[in-house]
């Protein structure tokens, strides 16, 4: 981008347009045509179509005509409100309590449905505030969960997967016999279909006979029966672990290339100065891997936002929406509930988020890098 804009004014002032130059432009377009056609057909085209559909109520299969709905899909996705629910009181004004002594509140649904201003809202989550319950209601609580879950997934997977990849790269960078075997083995999950991996991990996570619980039982000398994929508390962790394992091999290869690009002289000089291996790692390897790390962090982040397959196969977003992600929500709404317009709106928001995060990351990491260089 920068190279192009820099060279254009120069060309304009330097030469008059000639047939030769026109020919060159034509050739340039011809040569990039395959890539450009692909880009427009599969990226730009669908993107624009998605933007357009997100302002309609287009359905997948329907004899009903598609109508423009403006920004209704977006307000249905993003609609949020806060209501304070007071505990129920008996005729004497005392707070009613159930048999356990907990305060009894009217159901959120009853309150929401009694007020036309809250039409279409339902409970997302509630927090206690004194004796009241502050309840956040959303037009699409599942979308809100998907948003939060996706960010949690990205936040966890980037350091876990990046760290794992770096450790594996350091291990397979040793000059040992048969190291190629380990490189291949660590890389193998990347080229294996995620559907297959998800199924294998389904068995690993099985609470009764799964390898993971068996291993934990052995190590802790107790009977560990964690319901990995069926428990609200562990389902997302389970997804993060398997995803990091699956794709760390890809980042490992990038780190490996980075490691092999570090001049050997630096290590030699350090050894002459009497630096320990750990000191060498902190003072030579890590700083030299800076650009590689930036690439790994940005690419992992962008890829991580797209998490879908493993969730769709293992949990379908459950239990209780604890693993639903943005892409899964888009597919569920657009395809399975046939709401193409609404699903498109989810993907537009998804696009904006990824664009924004990638932009911020680039700015932050670039400026740090500039100081360094």
């Amino acid at each position, binding site marked *: 981008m920068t190279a192009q804009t820099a060279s254009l004014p120069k060309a304009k002032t330097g030469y008059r347009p000639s047939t030769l130059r026109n020919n060159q432009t034509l050739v340039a377009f011809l040569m990039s045509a395959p890539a450009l056609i692909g880009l427009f057909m599969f990226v730009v085209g669908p993107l624009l179509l998605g933007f357009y559909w997100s302002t309609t*109520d287009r*359905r*997948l*299969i*329907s*004899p*009903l005509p598609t109508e423009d709905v403006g920004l209704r899909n977006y307000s249905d996705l993003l609609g949020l409100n806060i209501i304070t629910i007071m505990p129920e009181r008996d005729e004497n004004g005392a707070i009613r309590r159930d048999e356990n002594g907990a305060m009894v509140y009217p*159901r959120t*649904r009853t309150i929401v449905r009694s007020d036309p201003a809250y039409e*279409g809202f*339902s409970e997302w989550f509630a927090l206690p505030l004194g004796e009241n319950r502050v309840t956040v209601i959303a037009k699409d609580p599942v979308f809100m969960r998907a948003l939060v879950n996706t960010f949690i997934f990205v936040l966890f997977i980037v350091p876990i997967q990046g760290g794992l990849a770096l450790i594996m790269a350091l291990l397979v960078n040793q000059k040992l016999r048969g190291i190629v075997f380990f490189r291949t083995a660590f890389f193998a999950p990347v080229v294996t279909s995620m559907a297959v991996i998800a199924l294998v991990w389904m068995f690993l996570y*099985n*609470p*009764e*006979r799964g390898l993971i619980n068996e291993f934990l039982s052995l190590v802790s000398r107790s009977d560990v029966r964690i*319901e990995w994929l*069926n*428990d*609200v508390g562990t389902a997302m962790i389970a997804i993060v672990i398997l995803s990091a394992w699956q794709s760390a091999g890809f980042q490992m290869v990038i780190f490996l290339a980075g490691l092999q690009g570090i001049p050997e002289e630096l290590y030699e000089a350090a050894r002459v100065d009497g630096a320990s291996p750990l000191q060498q790692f902190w003072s030579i390897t890590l700083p030299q891997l800076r650009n590689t790390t930036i690439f790994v962090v940005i690419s992992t982040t962008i890829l991580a936002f797209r998490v879908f397959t493993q969730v769709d196969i293992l949990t*379908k977003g*459950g*239990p*209780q929406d604890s693993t639903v992600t943005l892409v899964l929500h888009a597919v*569920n709404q657009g*395809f*399975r*509930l*046939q*709401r193409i317009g609404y699903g498109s709106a989810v993907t537009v928001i998804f696009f904006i988020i990824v664009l924004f995060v990638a932009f911020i990351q680039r700015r932050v990491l670039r400026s740090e890098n500039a100081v360094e260089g």
Partner: protein
Amino acid sequence: MNKSFLSISSGVSSKVKSALIAAAVVAMTATPVAQAQTPKEISVWLHKAGSSDLYVKLLDEFNASQTQYKAVTLVGAGSTSGGSSYDDAVKAAAAANELPCVLDVDGPNMPNYAWGGFLQSIEEYATEEYRKDFLASTIDQGTYNGTLYAIGPSDSGLGLVSRRSVLESVGARIPKGIEDPWTLEEFNKVLTDLKATGKFKYVFDTQIAGASEFYTWAFSPILQSFGGDLIDRTDYQSAEGVLNGPEAVAALTWIQNLYTSGLATLTPPTPNNDFVDGVAAIGYYPSWKFGAYNTAFGDDLVILPQPNYGKGAVTGLGSWQFAITKNCSDPAGAWAVIDYLVSPEANKSVTDVTGSLPTRLSVAAQNPNWGPNGKMYILQQQLEKGVGRPRPITPAYPVITVAFSKAMDDIIKGADVQDSLDKAVETIDENIKENKGYPVQ
């Protein structure tokens, strides 16, 4: 352009003209000959399941049996609807106008496809006379808005399966037929008695592993037997009060208790096979698994009718059927394929291999398992005597099954029953409203 074209056409000599006509005549007379040599291709899509190999074989036989048509078969992935890849592929193909001639559809999804306008009526082919040999439930399942769109060779039924020796060991009454199913109290007692024996890892194998459409097919009958339903069937406009009323809450609470009390499990050691392995004492029995059960237990095997949970016993029914799409330019050829697949001979081999319920009465009558002395007679009786209730025949079915499966999945994993059912009702009602009530087209 226009001018030169005109000049050419006006300049065509009579000699050339007659040559062209002669060529056209030759071409026309040649066509039937060519057709006889290269039969017309009819594209067929099948969903991937245990039975797909058999259907592929049947279609090969169809191709060999005549020279007019050639069925070109594609087996897609995924067997269950409500979010399966096959169902996704069909919807995508429908949106892109790329559907095959003959489409394999899961029964309850048909009304949505028909409403969407991409199926052709098969009324003119499947005449009144033709339908007489079919189970009424099969014809009902294939009919939307008074028009028959789909027909298939197999139907399904649901009951309980156990071993005589096991039930007798706890003194349980063994029902003789559909007139005396277990009541809820009896069933609860049998379950807890069997658990108390300590001989089983868990008691009731509900076969839920990897299920989505199975949730709706197998568990909405329990909901209905408790007095609830998936939707208010008077006008199919709302599920409010039906899917989240007290009866529905009672039904789903009972189901939830199966899992929390250890009578059933979310994580079977061998998914969908624990009854056969002897790990569980009672199986929730889909008719298509008869073969495996019979091989495992032989004479000790007992098939029991669906329990009466309060408002009369209810069984699930329906299966995959075949329909002709709007894209098909040769519906007569498509019908020839379907007619072959539901013919008595094909019906017999399909049901022999899969153990599913034959849709042709003439075939059922000759089948030793489904006949009056057969082990599966109870399931046949359930369908014939009105114990079966089809999943709601409405274009809103895809959203109903997605919403119910999700609620069911959350509930058996510990979510609040009323909240989960309320959410399902909201999903369904909003969708129906958004589609303007799915007006009849």
